[in-house]
């Protein structure tokens, strides 16, 4: 365990203050960066993907300096990284650790898959109810009321 931690630190260096988002599925890393609009951030952002993970085989990780996310903000990534953990770092120490929660409602980040939905015809912020149905996750469009599976969701 300790050995592993050390290797990870070498690959994506530690931050002094900020947030680490760990256990992102390797193929979702860039989606997470996009959903959180990290490309527009002025702070240092470090990331790595295809890193070894005991739990998931391969994983991605993001470290954002001097940024502490509101839980609403970060829960949006639960759609692509349902098991991601959120680690708050202050003075190189972990001060708080939590796991993302799938929100009941999401806005903006996903496009409605229905080509005949009004949100694909006019300038409207998309809005979905998240339906947690046994093992599958579905998004129900607030406007056209069609549901789409998370796997088929297209991110804006």
């Amino acid at each position: 365990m300790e050995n592993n931690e050390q290797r990870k630190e070498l690959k994506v260096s530690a931050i002094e203050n900020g947030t680490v988002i760990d256990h992102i599925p390797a193929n979702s890393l860039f989606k997470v960066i996009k959903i959180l609009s990290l490309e527009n951030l002025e702070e240092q952002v470090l990331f790595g993907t295809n890193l070894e993970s005991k739990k998931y085989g391969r994983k991605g990780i993001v470290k954002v300096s001097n940024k502490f996310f509101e839980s609403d903000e970060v829960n949006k990534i639960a759609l692509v990284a349902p098991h991601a953990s959120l680690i708050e770092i202050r003075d190189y120490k972990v001060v708080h650790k939590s796991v993302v929660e799938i929100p009941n409602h999401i806005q903006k980040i996903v496009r409605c898959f229905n080509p005949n939905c009004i949100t694909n015809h006019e300038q409207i912020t998309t809005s979905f109810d998240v339906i947690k149905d046994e093992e599958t996750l579905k998004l129900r469009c607030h406007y056209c009321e069609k549901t789409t599976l998370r796997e088929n969701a297209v991110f804006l």
Partner: protein
Amino acid sequence: MKNRSLISITDFSKEEQIRILDIAEGFEQQPTQNILGNYVVATLFFEPSTRTRLSFESAASRLGAKVIGFSSAASSSVSKGESLNDTILTVSNYSDIIVMRHPVDGSARYASEVSPVPVINAGDGANQHPTQTLLDMYSIRKTQGTLDNLNIAFVGDLKYGRTVHSLTMALTQYNTTFHLVSPTELKLPSYVKRHIKDNNLSYYQYTDLLAVIPHVDIIYMTRIQKERFSDSLEYERVKNAYNLSNSMLAGSRSNMAIMHPLPRVNEIAADVDSNPKAYYFQQALNGVFVRQALLAAILGVK
């Protein structure tokens, strides 16, 4: 229900739905009442629908309201490229309530969020058509004396038919047993069946209509809608799947009623029309009473 929009049938609770049906009964007794003389009703039909538009306009006129609007997008500013947002905001300055039919799914919900006056959805694309659902419920209650514990057969295009989807969802509140008759290609979608299952109700699926007739209280026929098929071969294969004729009704229950949202093509033979169990034209008339009830309740005069 005062000042509330009606976009999906589920926007109104079971009690509110019943209240609309009760108010509608009053209008059936006395269809002409001058209670909306001070109101302007806008009917915005971005796609043509003669039956729905005329029944709303008839409902408004019988209550003394003034009606403004258009009957196709071509005769509105939409043809000049105006957004739905702008059309709705403009029209809401001229009217107290907006009745809207639009070809795009979700347009009615969006309009209700933009509009300062209430919006009644008269059909948004393939999505919802709640006033049809209410008039169907009214017709079922009228012919059976109750909405509870009935056996109801839906026949024809159960896949694309939004009237069937909405009515099914509404009826799950009344311990209905569903008999679903359709070609295999046009079965009821699983997300609608899910509502039936979630309410612990039973449904049975058939491809043959004849076997179902003796066991049901309502036969709800639907047209196989050519415009919903992208594959014309598929349409040709199923278009004549059902043709209800008078001789098929011999073993039917005495209380049974035949309904159809209209227009029909060939799924009900003309010889059924004279059978007292044929209810589809009365059903269309009931649409006026139910729409009167909605206008009156939402404008707050009933």
